[in-house]
């Protein structure tokens, strides 16, 4: 069985400071992993994905994530937060090609000026 745990339901940072959103996965094999962002009243937008190539994945808007098999983690980072990064972020895993996604409960990111 697969599951995804996002360790923080809320994260607050000041503009210009680093962002860390934590995600752990549970799977009997190496899944594909994704980070999506959702702005208010919008659909989900893909930030980045890991599919067993490079373990450090770069995404849009300066975000990146590192796949660590030994820690079963896929944390999302950004060196410097911007006000426009304020949104809800979802980590997800997928087992089989074109299979359904298993989502974490989401992390609400607040960015203070």
């Amino acid at each position: 069985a697969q599951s995804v745990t996002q360790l923080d339901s809320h994260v607050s940072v000041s503009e210009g400071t680093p962002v860390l959103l934590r995600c752990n996965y549970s799977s009997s094999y190496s899944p594909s992993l994704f980070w999506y962002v959702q702005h208010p009243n919008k659909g989900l937008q893909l930030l980045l994905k890991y599919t067993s190539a490079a373990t450090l994945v770069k995404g849009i808007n300066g975000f990146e994530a590192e796949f660590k098999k030994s820690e079963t983690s896929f944390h999302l980072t950004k060196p410097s937060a911007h006000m426009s990064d304020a949104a809800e972020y979802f980590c997800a895993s997928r087992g089989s090609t074109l299979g359904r996604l298993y989502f974490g409960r989401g992390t609400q990111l607040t960015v203070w000026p």
Partner: protein
Amino acid sequence: GAGVSQSPSNKVTEKGKDVELRCDPISGHTALYWYRQSLGQGLEFLIYFQGNSAPDKSGLPSDRFSAERTGGSVSTLTIQRTQQEDSAVYLCATASRREGDTQYFGPGTRLTVL
């Protein structure tokens, strides 16, 4: 190109009524998924269509929920005899192997059951 579109964007209905939610996929995407997003339950998988294969209905919460995909394109999610707990945002996503299996999401339909 055009993304995934969903209609209506908002739907308010009375308890006990039936509703239909529509999803128009990205052209050529063979896989189509329905998810539900609610405050208490987060993002839940409902159903998945892939080409001509039998759909994976394992996420449908009750027999009041059904979905079909006509001609491998447009999909309709039907909820019969709606209940207040059906109030949620219903999200559709589509994917294709040509695009690396990434699921692209529509803007969702917000359903409110009074």
